[in-house]
């Protein structure tokens, strides 16, 4: 990582927690964990409240749908760490790896429901171009997504437009797939708190 404090500036208790994580998971501690555990009162804790709500709060979208949105937003931001991390979580939630890879490789032809496809299309534009207009929203509504579903998708998009930026800016190390799979199991079991 580009800041030494994020790698090794944590307190004794947090370093002990990292040792437990390494022992139990037999994987390195993901850089995203190091980030949220560094001075957590500044960023990690208040951001966790946002992300837990967006990703695990009540919604007409499933957990798999929202993790897929996270991976899709990450890909639009060209963030390798978050794309791999949340592809793994979406695959675990859906129990269908092919669905996730199909969406990420070609949204137009992937076999998914139209409200989800239209929502992802809008999130991709918002992430790449930093703006959408009323016509973009009408297209999502016409595809069958409700206003509340769009608001929920925008909450996911907010979270991953923050996290993806921090991953790339701080230079998160991209580990082997096994580390992301271990992280995915944790996020599916425990959420983002």
């Amino acid at each position: 990582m580009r800041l030494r404090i994020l790698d090794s500036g944590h307190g004794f208790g947090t370093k002990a927690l990292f040792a437990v994580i390494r022992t139990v998971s037999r994987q390195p501690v993901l850089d995203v964990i190091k980030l949220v555990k560094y001075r957590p009162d500044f960023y990690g804790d208040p951001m966790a409240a946002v992300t837990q709500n967006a990703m695990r709060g009540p919604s007409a979208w499933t957990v798999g749908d929202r993790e897929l949105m996270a991976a899709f937003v990450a890909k639009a931001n060209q963030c390798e760490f978050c794309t791999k991390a949340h592809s793994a979580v979406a695959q675990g939630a859906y129990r269908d790896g092919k669905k996730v890879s199909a969406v990420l490789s070609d949204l137009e032809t992937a076999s998914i429901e139209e409200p989800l496809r239209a929502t992802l299309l809008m999130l991709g534009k918002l992430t790449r171009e930093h703006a959408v207009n009323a016509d973009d929203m009408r297209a999502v509504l016409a595809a069958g997504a409700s206003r509340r579903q769009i608001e929920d998708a925008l909450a996911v998009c907010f979270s991953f437009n923050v996290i993806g930026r921090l991953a790339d800016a701080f230079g998160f190390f991209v580990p082997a797939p096994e580390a992301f799979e271990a992280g995915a199991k944790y996020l599916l079991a425990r959420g983002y708190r």
Partner: protein
Amino acid sequence: MSDIRQARKTLASRIQEGDGKASPFERSAAFNNSGLAEPAATLVDKVAKHTFRVSDEDFAAARGSGLSEDQVFEIVVCAAVGQASRQYDAALAALEAATGKE
């Protein structure tokens, strides 16, 4: 329905106005991507607009200007949350334009 409004407000307020190593002015300027001096201004603009282009040199320049690692950490977090907030607010405004105020 998930509702991140209060949690997002708390986050934005904490990182800009709460205790920190960078001044509240610097953190708000990073959040708004406006009003920072170089080289922090370039780092913040890259984080906001094309993060994948952020380089080791951008961090070295920020550190070389006298900012501590903690100050850079805070400024980068503020830049990321600020840009994501602008996009989120713009999208909600577009949704409201399409559906009318709820």
